[in-house]
């Protein structure tokens, strides 16, 4: 099957290259049959990559260790659920996943637009196939997922234990879906620039793909944060790691894009800005892929050093050069059709919000790449951490939250002072009241940025609630629907608007959680013996007893903790540290290797709406070291005493394995029977749950905005004079049927 896989990849590359040529020839000559043939090349690439990916997944499920990627990232003991995910834990498999997803989304957009944007589509097809050809060629020439060995090992190395987490199953496909979805508007933007058809058409057909990219990329980022919080054992959810930043930058950029295209759709403005944003978003997505694969920056997420850096640098350079050349060449066509009527208008707020988002991208980009820049200039790689980001990102985030509350309250084109007063009074009052209450009833004054974030968050939530209420009331006035029905139908009929408002509310909830948890967390690093306790954030944490668990895959040492407050029992938590074997390290003895591979943490967590109590154990194995060394010596002596013939006998091998397992179980039992003081990290962190809740609300809002409105409803324009307030002067006679929001 590996040979078939290799042939499918080569065929995919040939088809992609052919499709590029056919599409460009069809576009230039006007011969539709070539355009159609090019489009079929995309469908074919999708079918070939689906087959190739299925072959790879099948090899993982069958634990076929003749495939190099399977033996390096899976084993017979890897749970089936994770065998599927192991495919994209490898460089080779993740590249195949990238091109597989790219070909699927490309096929979907080209099928949906088969009778639309006919001038732009062939160029977009060529660009999409260009990306496809690039990634397939990486799997053909640099990192083949179908590399095999003639002498397969009996057992594989297994999946990196840090990846044995449910969100890791979904996180990479989500990020890759986001990255690949971003190539769709990029390709159509290039097509629009080449043809000069820079109206709303290309935006209309790709807007949902940009929104989908924003949604899945956001979900991917949050799943990564959740994994970091519950698996990595450092107690945080965001470390400003280069690979995290690599996903955040295109997300921020496409967030700006999905707002600013509304200004182009409504006013014909910001055309240069919009094409630049989407060209930039997609380039940043490729940059993110490059960062993960090249190993140029140190990251826990990266695949390590590889030979893929140079091809990616060439691709990124080509994308930047083509983008700049096309935008420069079309600058006359891209000129705005209108000007801002007023700085007090929604488009002005969107513009300001765009500037803030792009400033955030610039800050993250500069600080992320600062180590590389410093190395290039001074020869020394200066490492920067989270403190470098905060002075810039915190104030920008505060402005962003404020704007996400102001935007829904302001109309397009123009507003008057009286309207501003009417719309802002309640949300501003709620924000101010929140500020006063927190100042009087808490120690929030000690953290002014957090206090401002809470107040602005309350302002945003109030503005969104007010908008939902007023919209529902307006609908009720025209339909007499009951409130719940009017509410649901209002959102259903105006999905883009109210989906966006709900996402704004989610952002406020999320950032309130970030502000609270990062400003008011209590953390203690303590060493405890059984029976001892330590206080953190008003809670007492008592180390009750040690626990151990031994399986073929790992040895876990942990602790049962009793959590109490004011003498009252709150919860019992269990936290463990899992030690994985390092079977391929020749410097380790038969017992040592059981403890010297990777390690993972199982966090003892009590999560709640107001606070999380987060605990992790880090047992020191030094007290066991003398017995581990003695065990190594005993087993090595036994094994060297065997003749080669004896050493090959299955019964002898089983006997050695059995006694090795007994020895390891004995060491684990000693951890429980003769416990020694061990290290704990204890964190009481307020409102972390708000981060996950906020993310869910954002995703819900995004889904609402993404869901298509039925064509009939979309085409219905409002009737004159049927609003709550009657229009006073006649307007041009546009004949329409009804007004129902």
């Amino acid at each position, binding site marked *: 099957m590996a*040979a*078939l896989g290799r042939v*499918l990849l080569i*065929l995919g590359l040939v*088809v992609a290259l052919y*499709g590029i040529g056919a599409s460009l020839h069809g576009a230039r000559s006007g*011969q*539709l*049959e*070539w*355009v*159609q*043939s090019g489009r*079929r*090349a995309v469908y*074919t690439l999708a079918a*070939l990559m689906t*087959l190739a990916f299925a072959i790879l997944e099948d090899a993982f499920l069958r634990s076929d260790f003749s495939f190099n990627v399977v033996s390096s990232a899976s084993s017979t003991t890897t749970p089936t659920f994770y065998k599927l995910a192991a495919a994209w834990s490898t460089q080779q498999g993740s590249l195949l996943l990238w091109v597989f997803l790219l070909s699927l989304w490309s096929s979907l957009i080209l099928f949906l637009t088969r009778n639309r944007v*006919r001038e732009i589509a062939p160029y977009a097809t060529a660009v999409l196939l260009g990306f496809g050809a690039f990634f397939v060629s990486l799997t053909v020439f640099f990192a083949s997922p179908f590399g095999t060995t003639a002498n397969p090992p009996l057992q594989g190395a297994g999946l990196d234990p840090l990846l044995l987490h449910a969100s890791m199953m979904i996180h990479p496909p989500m990020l890759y879906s986001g990255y690949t979805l971003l190539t769709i508007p990029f390709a159509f933007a290039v097509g629009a620039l080449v043809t000069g*058809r820079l*109206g*709303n*058409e290309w935006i*209309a057909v790709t807007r949902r793909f940009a929104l989908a990219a924003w949604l899945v990329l956001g979900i991917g980022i949050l799943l990564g944060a959740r994994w970091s919080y519950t698996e990595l054992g450092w107690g945080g959810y965001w470390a400003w790691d280069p690979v995290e930043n690599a996903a955040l930058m295109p997300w921020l950029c496409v967030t700006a894009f999905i707002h600013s295209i509304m200004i182009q*759709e*409504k006013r014909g403005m910001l055309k240069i800005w919009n094409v630049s944003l989407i060209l930039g978003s997609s380039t940043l997505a490729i940059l993110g892929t490059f960062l993960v694969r090249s190993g140029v920056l140190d990251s826990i997420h990266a695949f390590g050093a590889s030979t893929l850096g140079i091809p990616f640098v060439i691709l990124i350079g080509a994308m930047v050069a083509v983008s700049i050349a096309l935008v420069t060449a079309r600058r006359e066509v891209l000129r705005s059709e209108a000007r801002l009527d007023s700085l007090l208008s929604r488009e002005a707020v969107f513009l300001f919000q765009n500037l803030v988002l792009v400033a955030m991208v610039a800050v993250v980009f500069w600080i992320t790449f600062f180590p590389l820049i410093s190395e290039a200039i001074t020869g020394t790689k200066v490492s920067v951490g989270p403190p470098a980001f905060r002075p810039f990102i915190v104030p920008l985030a505060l402005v962003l939250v404020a704007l996400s509350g102001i935007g829904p*309250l302001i*109309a*397009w*084109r*123009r*507003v*008057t002072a009286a*309207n501003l007063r009417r*719309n802002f009074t309640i949300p501003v009052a709620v924000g101010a009241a929140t500020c006063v209450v927190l100042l009087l009833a808490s120690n929030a004054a000690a953290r002014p940025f957090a206090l401002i974030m809470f107040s602005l968050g309350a302002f945003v939530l109030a503005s969104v609630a007010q908008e939902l209420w*007023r*919209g529902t*009331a*307006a609908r009720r*006035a025209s339909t007499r629907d009951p409130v719940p029905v009017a509410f649901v139908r209002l959102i259903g009929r*105006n999905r883009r*608007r109210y989906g966006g408002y709900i996402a704004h509310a989610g952002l406020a909830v999320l950032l309130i959680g970030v502000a609270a948890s990062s400003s008011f967390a209590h953390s203690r690093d303590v060493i405890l013996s059984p029976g001892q306790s330590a206080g953190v954030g008003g809670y007492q944490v008592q180390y009750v007893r040690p626990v151990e668990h031994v399986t073929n895959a790992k040895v876990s040492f942990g602790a049962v903790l009793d959590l109490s407050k004011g003498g009252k029992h709150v919860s019992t938590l269990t936290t463990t540290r899992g030690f994985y074997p390092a079977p391929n390290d020749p410097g380790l003895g038969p017992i040592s290797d059981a403890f010297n591979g990777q390690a993972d943490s199982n966090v003892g967590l009590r999560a709640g709406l107001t606070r999380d109590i987060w605990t992790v154990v880090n047992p020191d194995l030094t007290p066991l070291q003398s017995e581990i060394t003695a065990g190594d010596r005993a087993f090595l002596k036994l094994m060297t005493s065997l003749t080669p013939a004896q050493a090959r006998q299955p019964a002898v091998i089983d006997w050695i394995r059995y006694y090795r397992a007994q020895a390891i179980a004995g060491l684990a039992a000693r951890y429980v029977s003769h416990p020694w003081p061990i290290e704990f990290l204890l964190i009481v962190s307020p409102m972390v749950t708000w981060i996950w809740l906020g993310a869910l609300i954002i995703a819900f809002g995004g889904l609402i905005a993404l869901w298509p409105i039925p064509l*009939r409803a*979309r085409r*219905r*324009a409002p009737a*004159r004079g049927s*609003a*709550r307030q009657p*229009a*006073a*002067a006649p*307007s*041009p006679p*546009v*004949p*329409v*049927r009804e*007004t129902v*929001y």
Partner: protein
Amino acid sequence: MELLVILAVLAAVTLFVSGPLRRAAPSEPEGDRRIAELEAAREAKYLEIRDAELDHSTGKLSDEDYRVVDRALRSEAIEILHELDRAGGQASNGAGAAVDGR
């Protein structure tokens, strides 16, 4: 066996991708492209009219501002509909029917 599968895949790919080249595709009239562009503009304008109406009914636009904005939007919509008619828009519903959404 594997060779047979590879040959079958190769044949299927060749047949499928070259399919359009073995029959003449109908050419697209230039007018259709202009109509598609105008229809996109019409949809955007309808959305804008509805948004302005909703902004007015939820109190974000005063009566006076709404009158000005709505009049401008409807003028722009009518201009687009007339352009659609001029571009052979009967095929795309005609002005009145298009606004009616029928």
